[in-house]
């Protein structure tokens, strides 16, 4: 059964088509990849799915529910979590507080209960902290919980952001380049982590990633965007063998060259540069 489904998404900025008739679907317990050259519209697609951007056409369904008209926080409340391409942590907070923000809708007491320390506030706080502790321990962040989040290295910050979105206990998690800025050694750890959170949290994942090794290693299904259009879709193996995809990534004549592997992102980016009419990210 599908957890997240977008049908016929279309967005244009000042007459420029950033997305045209894009449909994607994430099923229960699935890890789905969203790939494509820079400027292909991947992040624009994410922004439409999460509600940061109103698409000109198309609908977004979360489970059975049409969420196209809902603002981001409503979609989050209904089970959609996300991370950002550039990490967006709350700079003034510790690691633990950042993740506690994610658990906002796990409890419901209001500001008066907080201010007067009513029982509902105390018990809510206990519940939230216990859940957050579990997630922090799972991601090996518990020891760092009192550190100001901004003092962590980038790879760790990505983990905190992941922890924060997990604290929402989402049904589907949208990850925008979870490996960007993560050291080579840490990448394998991230791959393991993503597998584990699918297993232990029963959450489906939609992942934007340039690192083809990650895409090949963990996805069940892949969508390829190019210039705002869906270029191909299928299992990782099918997509990998698709001639159009190879051309889009490596340019004409690229068939002879090998598929870009981990660490050759710069190369694939440069190759994609020529066929990149997409607009700037918001």
């Amino acid at each position, binding site marked *: 059964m599908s957890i997240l489904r977008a049908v016929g998404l279309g967005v244009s900025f000042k007459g420029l088509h950033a997305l045209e008739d894009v449909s994607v679907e994430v099923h229960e317990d699935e890890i789905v990849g969203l790939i494509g050259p820079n400027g292909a519209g991947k992040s624009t697609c994410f922004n439409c799915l999460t509600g940061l951007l109103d698409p000109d056409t198309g609908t977004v369904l979360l489970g059975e529910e049409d969420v196209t008209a809902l603002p*981001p*926080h409503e979609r989050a409340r209904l089970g959609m979590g996300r991370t950002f391409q550039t990490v*967006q*942590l709350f700079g*003034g907070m510790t690691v633990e507080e950042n993740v506690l923000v994610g658990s906002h809708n796990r*409890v419901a007491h209001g500001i008066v209960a907080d*201010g007067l*320390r009513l029982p509902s*506030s105390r018990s809510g706080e206990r519940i939230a902290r216990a859940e957050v502790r579990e997630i922090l321990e799972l991601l090996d962040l518990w020891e760092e919980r009192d550190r100001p989040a901004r003092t962590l290295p980038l790879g760790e910050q990505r983990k905190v952001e992941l922890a924060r979105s997990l604290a929402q206990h989402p049904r589907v998690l949208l990850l925008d380049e979870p490996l960007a800025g993560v050291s080579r050694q840490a990448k394998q750890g991230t791959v393991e982590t993503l597998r584990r959170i699918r297993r232990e949290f029963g959450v489906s994942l939609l992942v934007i990633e340039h690192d083809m090794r990650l895409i090949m290693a963990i996805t069940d299904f892949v969508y390829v965007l190019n210039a705002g259009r869906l270029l191909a879709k299928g299992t990782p193996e099918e997509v990998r063998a698709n001639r159009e995809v190879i051309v889009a990534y490596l340019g004409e004549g690229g068939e002879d060259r090998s598929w870009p592997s981990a660490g050759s992102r710069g190369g694939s980016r440069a190759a994609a540069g020529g066929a990149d009419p997409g607009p700037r990210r918001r």
Partner: protein
Amino acid sequence: MSAGLRGVGTGTEADTRGHDEDALGMSAPEQGREVHGAPDAVGVSEAALRRGMQLVVAGGSLAVAVLVPFLLPRYWTFVLLAAVTTMIVGLSIVVLTGFVGQISLCQATFMGVGAYASARLTGDAHLPFLIALPLAGLAAVPVGLLAGVPALRLKGLYLAIATLGFGAAVQATLFSSKTLTGGFSGVALERPTVFGISFASDLRYYFLTLVVLLLLMAFAANVKRGRSGRAFAAIRDGEVAAAASGISLARYKLTAFGLSAFIAGVGGSLFGHAMLSVNTSSFDIFHSITFVTVAIIAGVGSVGAAVFTGLMVNILPKALDRVLPGNLLLVIFSAGMLVQLAVAPDGIAGQMRRQQDAVLSWILRRRRVSGRD
């Protein structure tokens, strides 16, 4: 009264671990934390030391607040009283600007609503003061929500201008209306009587306002540490990520404006009963501008910073007045404020926190050395 005051102090201390520490200028990352740091040579963790130090500073400040009216000439009691009401307004700015990163140039308007409401409730409706006071704060809440509506679309300077316009509009209509608020002649308020005890004297009324200030500070500190406080801080630090985490920006921005207006309304009510009468000019927009300017220089990063706002608005000028002529004083005062802001963008409270940290690390260093010997 001072016995009652002590009772409140210890009671809240026991109930809400940490809020008293916050009252003296702690920032979010340091507060409400378990003691888990590695114990040093003497067996006391840094966190425990830090908490001890905060308690000393908080207790010391409270002791000063209780003793100072007895040590200074009687004229000062009224100045102190006015300062405490300003501290409450400072707290309302801490909540809005410090917690959520929003700005309002109509805090005096919220005060005015509180003061006029209190005049009506105690004077015309003959309600007991203890009931009228929170109602006066509640009366300011819808006005605060209205003033907060522009915050859903505007930020920074534009929001400041919108709230300034709102304040000016309320002053030109509501606060100038002869029928509603008495216009230029204003309304009279009396010093309250609570449970048969008269708070007519400056001294007694000073202690009453001090208790209200402490209660409001405890409330604000509790909010800051809880779910709502984190939602506020998330909006302040990053609206997009806050919304993606499921926080309704509109709801919490309006909540902040409502809470801020409540606190300022209570402050306005206490101010009105302190001054014995208020009129159109008591709550004009220049007061709002002064409050926000001074609050930002004093620091809005912590609940305790509100204290400095009152000290700077009411006490510093009066204290310097004795040694310097008025005009020169104003120039020096303003220049000093600019220098202060350049030196410490997070305000005087932030500066003091850093000095406190410096003292703390000095103590820790010494203890480590002595522990090794």
